[in-house]
């Protein structure tokens, strides 16, 4: 799978779910979308798709629950947490495909790089359905996604503000966790790690009061869950928000930090080792300096 394909999946399946956190934890953004009741479906032709739903001031990002898209040659198999759209599927689904979540705005990207350029702010999608909701897309949704990008693009100056530090850490933590199944499924360097993955749940938690994410590793893959699951097989405890932020942004020597107590690890350390190998690959795709040649 190409660099752009993997990155598109990460943008949809790992970055976009951060909208949930921004709407929940940023009062201004919550107010902004409080009246919205609609679903925005992002689809890459021949690639992944995901739905962003707004209802009652809550944003939910997840797989499509509408009828599966039908390609010219027959049904297209779903894969992973989000569906895979066949090359001929663009436009096959219509209004209301998302069931009870209100009308659907359907945004189609002609390719993975098309979607990635949108995430870079350099291109626009092709709206196929829901033209009457383009105003929401152009205004509220754009403002919301700009806010998410703001929280995910830290500077040293911004990180000095406790509120920003907390949001950046939360969003980075969740993005990293949701990137794990994507990379294990599609990154050439990570795919071989799937086979040796010990079964069990890894909880990564910022002390003393969170946030936390859980990665449930099983025979069928890894399922990321926001929050802390009980009875984990392995624990990664990060001393505080600044430590967690440094850890998540690759500024911490993990081995040294594990000894100094900045990062505490317990349980099936081999499971943590495997997850850490995958997490180490995230910046290859999701930092501004990432180069496509890195995966050539």
């Amino acid at each position, binding site marked *: 799978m190409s660099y752009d394909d993997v990155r598109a999946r990460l943008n949809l399946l790992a970055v976009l779910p951060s909208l949930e956190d921004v709407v929940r934890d940023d009062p201004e953004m919550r107010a902004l979308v409080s009246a919205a009741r609609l679903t925005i479906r992002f689809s890459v032709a021949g690639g992944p798709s995901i739905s962003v739903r707004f209802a009652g001031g809550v944003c939910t990002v997840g797989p499509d629950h509408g009828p599966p898209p039908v390609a010219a040659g027959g049904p297209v198999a779903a894969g992973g947490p989000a569906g895979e759209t066949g090359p001929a599927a663009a436009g096959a689904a219509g209004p209301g495909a998302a069931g009870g979540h209100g009308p659907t705005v359907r945004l189609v990207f002609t390719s993975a790089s098309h979607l990635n350029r949108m995430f870079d702010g350099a291109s626009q999608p092709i709206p196929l359905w829901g033209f009457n909701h383009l105003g929401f897309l152009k205004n509220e949704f754009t403002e919301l996604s700009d806010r998410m990008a703001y929280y995910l693009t830290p500077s040293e100056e911004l990180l000095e503000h406790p509120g920003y530090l907390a949001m950046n850490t939360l969003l980075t933590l969740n993005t990293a966790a949701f990137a794990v199944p994507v990379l294990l499924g599609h990154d050439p360097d990570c795919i071989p790690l799937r086979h040796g993955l010990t079964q069990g749940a890894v909880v990564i938690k910022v002390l003393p009061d969170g946030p936390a994410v859980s990665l449930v590793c099983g025979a069928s893959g890894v399922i990321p869950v926001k929050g802390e699951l009980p009875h984990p097989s392995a624990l990664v405890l990060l001393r505080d928000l600044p430590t967690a932020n440094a850890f998540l942004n690759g500024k911490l020597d993990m081995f040294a930090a594990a000894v100094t107590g900045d990062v505490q*690890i317990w349980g099936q350390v081999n499971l943590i080792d495997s997850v850490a190998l995958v997490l180490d690959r995230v910046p290859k795709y999701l930092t501004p300096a990432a180069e496509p040649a890195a995966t050539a």
Partner: protein
Amino acid sequence: MDTYSFAKSQELFARATKVIPCGIPGHFSPALLVPPTAYPFFAASGKGAHFTDVDGNDFIDYMCAYGPMVLGYDNKVVHDAAAKQRKLGDTLAAPAPVMVELAEKLTSMIAAADWAFFAKNGGDMTNYATMIARTATGRPLIVAIEGGYHGVAPWMQGAGHHGVIAGDVAGFVRIPWNDVEAFERVLAEHPGQVAGFIATPYHHPTFADSELPAEGYWQRIRELCDREGVVLIIDDVRCGFRLSLRGSADYFGFTPDLACYCKAIANGYPIAAIVGSEALKGAAAKVFYAGSYWYQAVPMAAGLACLAELERLDAPQRMQDYGRALTDGMKRLADKHGYELKVSGVTSMPYLRLTDDPSLMLHQRFCSECARRGAYFTSHHNWFMSCAHTQKDLDRTLAIVEDAFTALEKSPKGQGGN
């Protein structure tokens, strides 16, 4: 019972992190000691089965430098032999006669060993073994065991690890341990392509129980290798001379084509060896393989002395007896305190685990309580017995274990909620 503190270790580690990646890299990394705050990071000295850390804390050592310490630290017999050779010369412009003597010693000791070759680390030898197998057979593929450890070269670490590219592992197929049918499948899927089969004498992964070979496993693997012309390689680096002085393959009743040794050869002096059958001597000769210090004479002299001492002491039996007494005693104490302690592997290098908590967090707390009282137990790796462990060490260790179980009961729940 008093518990230790490690201020100087931690201070030295802080210095180390400024000038050494990870502070202490590799298998000695304190990151594997859970929690690191319960363990020493730097050793100041060693004597017998004990080492003293930089804070002056004394430990009964059950890791034995992860295997090399087999006769005890600061062993006079080995040191004297090394000192004698050092006076004559160590790294010279040509090998010293002791190289031939050591090869003769190994080939006389180890069953079916017709020749020997020396290097420094176990990974040097396992890598060489795969090259010999490919040379001898003209085939590309090596079959290894999932989770089997053979060193740190890219193919040994496996795909997905840092610094490893797909090409590094392209010539290797991993199959589960104790699965003869899986080996048969690989042979059927790659007819005439498998050069070698490499495995440890029994499976001793980290963070998991050790697994002995199923009845008839090795004999069946041997048959398949013979039938298909595959070179059977035993990685005896960790088990070597702790199961049998004739080699661990002999302990399990089969004969390999190549066997790799390292840890217990010279009681801490740096040397590794591969031994092989006459049929593979020509292939071994064709492979160019060398290192700057591989002809160092002092470790060879130390190896000769160490092997003689291992024979004199009937070392494998002695270490297995001590390990059995230790693990039986620990199991009794665990039972007394309401825990179940599982012991796996051969008792000269057992892996222990409190089964009450599959996450290992309880076991980690137990081992750390022992460590801070002076019994150097790790929770992720098999332990090692030595010929230097004494009855006094055993009694002291069991007293520590008893106190550690009591501490577990008294202490509040750990980080893992256990």
